[in-house]
């Protein structure tokens, strides 16, 4: 592996996607080589416009590859909306600059070309539904062994879900894609609700970000929006920053407890569609294929996030 790791962020912004993207940009260990979008927290049009605006906001070079991908799940026509959490356009009440336009060409094809050029090097940070990653493997199977690894925010291993009793939003949004990726043999690091829910950012953290000015303050505003929703539901001024945990997993893997297991995703099931299955004890009869984060040092994550977000220049 090169010292600076080339990463692609495959995202559906989404407020926590914005925080994740800002953390990537602020991290000298990571070289952001492209951004791809898909439908998830909002429609593809919204997530792409949001991503385009975030690239402007973060001052990224105009030539940075930026491509749109899937507009809905792999095997179904209908997308499941997530607007209640992120607001109608996916970015709460946050004012963003005018978005830049994505390049022509499908995200999946650009990903394939890029990975072929840098075999074994590229990490995909997948923080939306897994539709683009599954699409990549479906349309360009030769690329599978060339992917460095995929860090996924998604699933609920041994905790309750956040969309149904057993399923997390990203996996539930496209269970077929998630299963395709889970069983693909591509090196996977899964960052599920087991850790994202335990790494709550507090109201004080948010106030400190807002006081820091610049990008950090804007990220603080985004977290404040999420925290207002969280407070309405749970009575505490705090919020989970799910997608940012995927970036943290890459920057400081030792922050989390990892279990190595075969994984899959339930695609049928009356109550369990979209459930992540983590087979820690070999009941599926498959080789371990993923590292799944099941524990986290929440304090260290909050420090890491604050440090990175306040280091974003602009």
């Amino acid at each position, binding site marked *: 592996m090169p010292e600076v790791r080339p990463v692609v962020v495959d995202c559906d912004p989404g407020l926590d996607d914005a925080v994740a993207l800002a953390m990537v940009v602020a991290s000298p260990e990571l070289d952001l080589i492209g951004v791809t979008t898909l439908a998830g927290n909002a429609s593809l049009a919204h997530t792409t416009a949001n991503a385009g605006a975030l690239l402007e906001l973060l001052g990224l070079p105009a030539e940075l590859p930026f491509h749109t991908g899937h507009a809905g799940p792999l095997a179904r026509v209908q997308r499941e909306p997530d607007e209640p959490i992120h607001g109608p356009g996916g970015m709460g009440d946050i004012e963003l600059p005018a978005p830049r336009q994505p390049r022509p060409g499908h995200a999946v094809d650009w990903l394939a070309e890029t990975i072929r050029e840098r075999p074994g090097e590229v990490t995909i940070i997948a923080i939306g539904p897994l539709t683009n990653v599954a699409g990549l493997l479906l349309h360009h199977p030769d690329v599978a062994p060339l992917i460095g690894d995929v860090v996924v925010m998604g699933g609920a291993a*041994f*905790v*309750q879900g*956040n*969309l*149904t*009793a*057993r399923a997390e939003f990203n996996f539930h949004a496209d269970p077929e894609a998630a299963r395709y990726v889970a069983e693909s043999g591509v090196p996977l690091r899964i960052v599920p609700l087991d850790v994202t829910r335990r790494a709550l950012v507090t109201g004080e953290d948010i106030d400190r970000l807002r006081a820091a000015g610049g990008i950090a303050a804007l990220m603080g505003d985004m977290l404040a929006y999420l925290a207002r929703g969280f407070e309405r539901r749970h009575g505490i001024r705090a919020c989970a920053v799910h997608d940012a945990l995927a970036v943290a997993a890459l920057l400081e893997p030792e922050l989390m407890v990892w279990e190595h297991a075969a994984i*899959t995703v*339930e*695609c*049928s*099931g*009356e*109550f*369990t*569609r979209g*459930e992540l*299955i*983590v*087979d*820690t*004890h070999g*009941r*599926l009869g498959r080789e371990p294929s993923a590292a799944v984060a099941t524990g986290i040092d929440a304090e260290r994550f909050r420090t890491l996030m604050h440090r990175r977000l306040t280091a974003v220049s602009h």
Partner: protein
Amino acid sequence: MLIVDTDPGTDDAAAIMTLLASGTKVDAFVSVYGNVPEHKTTSNLQRLLDIVGETNTARYRGTHRPMYGEQVAAKHIHGEDGMSGAFAEPRHDLPELPRVNYVSMLREATEPVTIIALGPLTNIGSALAAAPDVVDKIERIIFMGGAVLTYGNETAAASFNAVNDPTAAAIVYDSGVSIAQVGLDVCRPAEIPIKPLLPFRDSTTPAGQLIWTLLNEHFLVKRAGGLTEDSVIRFNDAPCVAYFLHPELFRTERLPVMIETEGRYTRGATVADFPGYTGREPNTDVLLEIDVDGYAALISDLLLTYL
């Protein structure tokens, strides 16, 4: 009125011995297929009750297969005879037990019935399907099975007793009956140190010798390379009895719980709706945490009465 529905099973045997040692009056014992086929669970039940002198309580044999789907057995845990070899010699002189008729047993019950269900829920589920009215006679079912915030023991997502007959389990959970779910969340951490039980090595009573076999031949002891002073064992059915006797040893949450009957990987999973996404009424006291030391002391002390 108390009914024990059981598939002995080494841990069933330990649970039943514990329950009887507490002085609890049981009104009927009913067998069900499960850990081993029904003809073995039925004869194991009879032999166990004979050994502990429980000879006057009604005994019935129950169903021999799931309402729907294939039975899975657990011979790797309980041995070919289901009793770690204690009953390896078959007995041909046991009386034929009458088939259970839960519907009439419940309809004729004059007081609320508690069922401690230590095996698949086929007997109870098929009765509730045949006569949903009998649900009114059941005060609660204390069921050993399920996994909520932990992995399964038969599949990655489901527990042995629920996966054996998800259809029956779904009928029971959807019936309106009140359930206490004694699942792997509490059974898996419920380790019992063997040390206080070592005097059973020299026991001369049939019950004491049976307990020694359950300890010495326990799958965890064998897996660890043999019995030592530091060995620990688990009897997955025993927390059901502990909960019946001392509910304060457990932390429970009252939740809506559904049984998954369709999933490819999750069939038989107990789906607990913590945040209330489904809008269903809570039907289950889900046991989520256990006072392991208090539990182990309770079980050991009760078993030691057989010394």
